[in-house]
């Protein structure tokens, strides 16, 4: 890819491709969220626990996203790190009705953010406090408190409440992600070119 192509990419003449990792504990709704974001041609498909990962693609108004929808089961979580290096943004999904495992989610998040491939980069992290339709769900503020999100200083982050089954809240999150991912990717490529 020549420099000219890159320039045209920056100027927004072409849709930039962004690699997004979708992480979170098992049964938090990652695959359901991604299915909602996909162009709606395969509705009603039954969602089964992911083993390993799935690759999905969808587009927003200015970016084209390639999402690595990772399995959230505990025994596969150590496989996430294989995909950290080349990702440009992270979506972290939390089951906001699962108070019990909030500590587990926090622990996974801390491990993720302190990983050497992640901590040095200013990639944007989008949190979905999912399953807000359930009556015992916590508010997004409460979730962010429990995960101590305010301690994340070096990365842009955003939390929004969502209901993946109905698709509520997803649009807001993706819009935020789009803006921040663009900024990140510009920086990333500038960095590459300078190097």
């Amino acid at each position, binding site marked *: 890819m020549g420099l000219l192509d890159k320039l045209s990419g920056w100027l927004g003449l072409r849709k930039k*491709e962004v690699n997004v990792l979708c992480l979170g504990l098992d049964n938090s709704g990652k695959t359901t969220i991604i299915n909602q974001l996909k162009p709606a041609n395969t509705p009603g498909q039954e969602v089964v626990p992911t083993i390993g990962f*799935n*690759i999905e693609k969808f587009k927003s108004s200015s970016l084209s996203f390639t999402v690595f929808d990772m399995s959230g089961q505990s025994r596969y979580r150590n496989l996430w790190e294989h995909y950290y290096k*080349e990702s440009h943004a992270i979506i972290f999904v939390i089951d906001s009705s699962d108070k019990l495992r909030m500590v587990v989610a926090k622990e996974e998040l801390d491990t993720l953010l302190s990983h050497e491939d992640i901590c040095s980069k200013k990639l944007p992290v989008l949190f979905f406090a999912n399953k807000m339709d359930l009556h015992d769900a916590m508010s997004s503020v409460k979730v962010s408190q429990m995960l101590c999100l305010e301690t994340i200083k070096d990365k842009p982050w955003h939390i929004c409440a969502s209901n993946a089954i109905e698709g509520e809240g997803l649009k807001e999150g993706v819009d935020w992600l789009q803006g921040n991912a663009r900024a990140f990717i510009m920086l990333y490529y500038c960095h590459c070119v300078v190097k």
Partner: protein
Amino acid sequence: MIKKFDKKDEESGSGSNPFQHLEKSAVLQEARIFNETPINPRRCLHILTKIIYLLNQGEHFGTTEATEAFFAMTRLFQSNDQTLRRMCYLTIKEMANISEDVIIVTSSLTKDMTGKDDVYRGPAIRALCRITDTTMLQAIERYMKQAIVDKVPSVSSSALVSSLHMVKMSYDVVKRWVNEAQEAASSDNIMVQYHALGLLYHLRKNDRLAVTKMLNKFTKSGLKSPFAYCMLIRIASKLLDETEGGHDSPLFDFIESCLRNKNEMVVYEAASAIVHMPNCTARELAPAVSVLQLFCSSPKAALRYAAVRTLNKVAMKHPSAVTACNLDLENLITDSNRSIATLAITTLLKTGSESSVDRLMKQISSFVSEISDEFKVVVVQAISALCQKYPRKHSVMMNFLSNMLRDDGGFEYKRAIVDCIISIIEENPESKETGLAHLCEFIEDCEHTVLATKILHLLGKEGPRTPQPSKYIRFIFNRVVLESEAVRAAAVSALAKFGAQNDDLLPSVLVLMQRCMMDSDDEVRDRATFYMNVLQQKQKALNAAYIFNGLSVSIPGLEKSLHQYTLDPSEKPFDMKTVPLATTPITEQKTEIAPVATSKLPEKLAPSRQDIYQEQLAAIPEFQGLGPLFKSAEPVQLTEAETEYVVRCIKHTFSRHMVFQFDCTNTLNDQLLQKVLVQMEPSESYEVLHYLPAASLPYSQPGSCYTLVRLPDDDPTAVSCTFSCTMKYLVRDCDPNTGEPDDDGYDDEYVLEDLEVTVADHIQKVLKPNFGAAWEEVGDEFEKEETFALASVRTLDEAVKNIVSFLGMQPCERSDKVPENKNSHILFLAGVFRGGHDTLVRARLALADGVTMQVTVRSDEETVVDVILASVG
């Protein structure tokens, strides 16, 4: 200089393989572009090809680097390029065992296999099944069931074949897919039907009843696929073979009916199945042979080849049936396809009469240079079989073989010829000299070390006993001058044998030996020095012990004993008698039947059966003080076939004790046996010291229990004894399906057949290549002689067999083979008695009304001689 470079370039350029000089690290470096976005399918494809190429070249990938490359590859799933995706499947399959965490692609593959794109579905199933283990199989079970009954043939076939592979891993899960497989078996697609039948069979093959049912069903309903038909024929003939079903069984009728099938493949399969059945009558063979005969004149080369190859195989078993095809085979002699011609000729050689041999040999020598080595070996095998049939023809054969020996050819081919010549020499004493002469000529220009050493060994053995031994010396000494170390060493050993046996040659041999002592190689020098010193003593006994008859101990055993000795040094010198003896390979006797088969003898240094037992027994603490294992007998069955429990016994003899190893198998699936031991009641003064029970014996898993017995010290002549055996155990009933046993059980016992200990259990076979020398070596100090009349035997052959099996000693000098039409015979037997006493037996047999036998026994211990004579009487 420039020219040299050019040549090099040409050489490297001549191989059109673009992947020739790939560097693993470079390729793995390149694999990093998998991580780039967007993906460049063409470049990635090329790199994947390189990786697979390297893997198939046997390049070793470390787990870390393989895993890294694998995970980088998983990113390629985001591309929708069809070729790239299918290349990913291939890579997944190749790397399934070398990379970690390959299950990461499970969801991606399940997505592809259930997707809309049929091109992806089959390969995805196959890749998925390669990375799945038993625990993961449950998760994809639903998809597999759907795929088996899918209407797209490639998907269904993939699923069936993958299931077949997984049967090995998780039988119980795959077994649940039987209904789906059943449905697929009625598919219209020939491949799907074939694969479904294969899966069904493998799921049921351990259950004979179910297989029979399945066969009945399919033979009645009929199948579309010729492949499936062939499979059915194979299953049916296997079942017939196992059940020893008569030829009136419906299965046989089915196979015979397939001879009238429309498809040639099915017809051939049926004919081949019938022809290969044991004990087929001529009437049953006839239709099958006539079908093969028909194929012999088919315009299709493949059919002619198949037919003639099958006929060739059965020619030995049913020569008369194949004779019917002689005319057709004659036509095939000149077939333009040399493979067919060769097989036709060799078949005719097997079936034809003695008079046609010359003509056929002439025909075959006209094109022997045009056929491949593999078929030349077939020719040699036919010749060697022929030599046994018509010993008088050996001069023709020998000429032919020596011509073949001069031609170019690979190792296997040369080895077959050499083996064949050696077997002719052993069969026909009158051909010995010509044979040896041909072999001598061959080693003058022989590039195969193994063959050269083999021939030198033979020369050493046979040469000294020919009328003119001196003429071989030149050939042997030439080897010392010209060849590699191994051949030189073998030549030195051969020379020594000439010196030891021929007194008039001894001075010259000593001179040659002296020259060999100057050799550059250690082994050659050592051997020469050793033989030199032995020969200079001029003692027959020394010659016999150290030149003719080498070490008779087991090599791994010697190694272990020496190692033990160095670990635990003592004042005492190392005692050779503590080393377990080598068991004479059983194949030794087979040489007469299949001379060429001996070439497939296992490598000498592989631990023998006895070495394995030695190790197993040494691991049991109770048996550690027993010293080295002296002999392990062949297993004896103590139960009838197909009883509730199957028990066989292996007798292990030590210098003062015997250990009886009982291998028990429980064939009742509703019982779990515990604390299994075999109680033994001796008839003589043998003393049972210790029982070592088998802790538990689940259904169909063999287990061993042991009994330790002390041999009577005070009476060394008590060598035979009868034990009555009873198996005692605790029974716990269990659920046949789950194998879950009940909590409590009850004691029970089971009476086994009596076990005999005979004199043969105290004697280990030892092959003395030169019996005469060994006889002199032992000397006549304790020689005893007695004459017996064997009234019950009618032929010499029978008598020899009886004596050999009774004494359990090794026949030497091929004396176990009684020449035809002779009234007297001398049998030489060699062995080592328990305690390490060399024992030799010479039995002169004479055939009058019954057989009269004069037995002479020599040993270095008087009691041994008495024991043997007493046991014969």
